[in-house]
């Protein structure tokens, strides 16, 4: 049985902070298929299109028929633990800091034998379920967990290392005013977050969220304006060293494309909040978070962006707003590269139209704040990079994967009979 994870004791500044180390990062190009699936929390393996043989480890030609037509497909994640070991010495510093480390050999029901990380509750000859998760190097790795849930299962240190679980962590949500903030804060506290910091801009302007949230235990409201570099730096000076997860939900939006607007005033604000906002936050909070990714139970773990799914392909009804989201999406990819050596995760939550004032003109389905909050917490627990929240986001993702040009043409259809 997994012992419950205790809240960390107060940090002793005299003691060494574990540095941001990573497990091995090098992979062949074929093996990155596993990483791509892990980014979305899927377990996929290569399958031969000609003879249907399931393959592992990832390779470039079928081991049964030599066909080079191998595709990644989601697979049953069930298997049997053949052998187990507890590694007590390693030449890799990441593992040395975390010894002992359990690993095992699992025969998958779909055929191949895999070597994998091993949850503490798995025993030899047990039926196990394989999770495909991103590790601290940002690579997809396999972990065997018990087929049936066990007590405190998520507290297993090896499983937790493959997540950004909010439990016992301190989380900054950047915009108290966003309609989704109460749901986000509530879901994170329910998931065991130690503290939720809420950034509030222009505190003299009244708004409904303040009264609901100011009452809550373990919630602190702090001044933050993501368009003001001094404000961002000031807050980072205060709480940057204890921000374990940063969720940027600051958003400025108005409807319309370029011709709907007489000037660039709204577009400037959109870029200032939606694109330069996360950049200011990254510059102020990024270095501190990156230095604390090895820092025990409440190590820095993740950076979360909430983006319109139309960052992938523009929706002209909100053309200028989605352009700023495309910029933010591109920035998030840059941040992934910049944070990579530290192991700090960047999770993008792509959402369709949310159920709030500025999307009132669109018909349903829309994403309710609670649904978004659930998706954020689930994504953090699974250590995802890409979360698709709601029916619209999932549909756009599918269409974008099938053919980006077809999707673009359909989204920019124009009005019949004009």
């Amino acid at each position: 049985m997994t012992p419950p994870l205790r809240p960390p004791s107060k940090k002793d500044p005299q003691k060494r902070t574990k540095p941001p180390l990573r497990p091995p990062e090098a992979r062949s190009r074929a093996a990155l298929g596993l990483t791509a699936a892990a980014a979305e929390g899927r377990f996929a393996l290569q399958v031969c299109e000609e003879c249907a043989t399931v393959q592992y480890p990832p390779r470039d030609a079928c081991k049964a028929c030599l066909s080079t037509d191998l595709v990644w497909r989601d697979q049953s994640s069930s298997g049997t633990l053949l052998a187990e070991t507890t590694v007590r010495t390693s030449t890799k510093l990441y593992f040395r800091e975390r010894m002992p480390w359990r690993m095992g050999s699992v025969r998958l029901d779909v055929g191949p034998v895999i070597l994998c990380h091993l949850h503490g509750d798995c025993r030899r000859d047990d039926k196990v379920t394989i999770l495909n998760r991103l590790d601290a190097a940002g690579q997809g790795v396999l972990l065997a967990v018990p087929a049936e849930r066990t007590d405190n299962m998520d507290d297993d240190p090896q499983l937790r290392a493959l997540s950004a679980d909010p439990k016992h962590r301190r989380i900054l949500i950047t915009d108290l005013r966003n309609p989704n903030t109460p749901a986000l804060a509530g879901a994170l506290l329910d998931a065991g977050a130690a503290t939720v910091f809420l950034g509030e801009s222009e505190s003299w302007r009244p708004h409904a969220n303040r009264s609901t949230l100011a009452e809550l235990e373990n919630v602190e409201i702090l001044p933050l304006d993501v368009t003001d570099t001094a404000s961002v730096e000031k807050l980072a000076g205060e709480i940057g060293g204890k921000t374990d997860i940063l969720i940027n939900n600051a958003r400025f939006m108005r409807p319309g494309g370029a011709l709907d607007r007489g000037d660039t005033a709204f577009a400037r604000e959109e870029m200032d909040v939606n694109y330069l906002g996360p950049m200011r936050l990254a510059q102020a909070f990024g270095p501190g978070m990156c230095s604390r990714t090895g820092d025990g139970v409440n190590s820095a773990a993740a950076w979360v962006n909430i983006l319109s799914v139309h960052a992938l392909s523009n929706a002209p009804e909100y053309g200028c707003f989605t352009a700023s989201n495309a910029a933010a999406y591109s920035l998030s990819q840059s941040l992934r590269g910049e944070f990579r050596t530290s192991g700090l995760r960047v999770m993008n939550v792509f959402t369709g139209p949310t159920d709030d004032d500025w999307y009132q003109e669109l018909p349903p389905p829309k994403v309710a704040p609670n649904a978004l909050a659930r998706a954020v917490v689930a994504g953090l627990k699974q250590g995802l990079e890409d979360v698709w929240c709601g029916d619209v986001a999932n549909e756009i993702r599918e269409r974008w994967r099938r053919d980006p040009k077809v999707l673009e043409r359909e989204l920019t259809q124009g009005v019949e009979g004009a």
Partner: protein
Amino acid sequence: MGKRLGYEGIAVTAPFSTPYQRYSIETAHWWIARALRGSLRAAGLKPADLDGLSVSSFTLFPDTAVGLTQHLGLVPRWLDHIPMGGASGVVALRRAARAVQAGDADFVACVAGDTNHIDSFRNMLSSFSRFAQDASYPYGYGGPNANFALMTDRYMQEFGATREDFGRICVAQRENALKNPNAVMKKQLTLEQYLSARPIADPIALFDCVMPCAGSECFLVMSVEEATRRNLPFATIGSTIERHNAHAEDPIQLRGGWTLDIDELYEMADCTPDDIDLLQTYDDYPVISMMQMEDLGFCDKGSGPEFVRTRNLTVTGDFPHNTSGGQLSAGQAGAAGGFIGLVEALRQVQGVAGGTQVKDASKALVSGFGMINYDRGVCTSAAILKSGVSA
């Protein structure tokens, strides 16, 4: 499959082992040169006489056998580089023998050597194979310790082996090593010490693991006429086998590729396991030695534990095994670990093994096992050597 040609007329001679060192500031080139010179001197040959060269090494990078020819000033007309780790000794032997039989070369030196700098082992692991990089090392980075731990764990489950059984192999080898002045391990090992050693990757503990070190091994292959003309003691080759990626369908490795070819091995050498005077297995971990005793026909599959309980594996025992101490006690000098048993077996059947000499040794079986490419060793090999002319 047609009947293979025998190895008539081929002599294997001039075995040379450069004394191993735990760490060395020298390079693989240096170690290989030392062993090569040792064998050439033993045979009274000059470097210019050599027209065939076979090289095995992990730490030559960025060089290969090609770079070595220029580095060492050799002009071979037959050149081989064998990247098969623990299986490389026997593979070098069988290829060199065919080259000499066919007249492609007259004097082939088979040499293996590696250095061991402070960081060599870690560096070798990090670039060992693509499957290991993608699918093995990210999982705790235990290296071969973890792979053999899993095999040992399953083997113990399947066949009821205990740690004591594996300990018997290690303790006997240490006793042999104490008779070999070049062995890295110099102190006696008791079964109690073996059992109470620091755990490395359960169920494997410290004395189940080879110690990486620097060293080199070499021998020469030539015609019986040449060996006779030079008054060299030599061994002859009864038979050899080699196999790669056998039993890929087995979910975990409990047997090796030897099982596919073992009947032919004995048939070609015209003998049975009972005729073998000593066995040299590849022994980076005791579980694989136990599997070789089974797969090479000395006992049935699964009865390895019982076999080692009832036999004495020391030089003076009823089943001499890894007579120089093997890698477990003499050290694992990289690819030379694939030669250590073969070179020792050559000394044994030539009667020049000194302190580790097995009385009246005339037939030796040497087997190789190499390259944990992902979850198991891919290469296996074996050879039966016979006394040709003893010293």
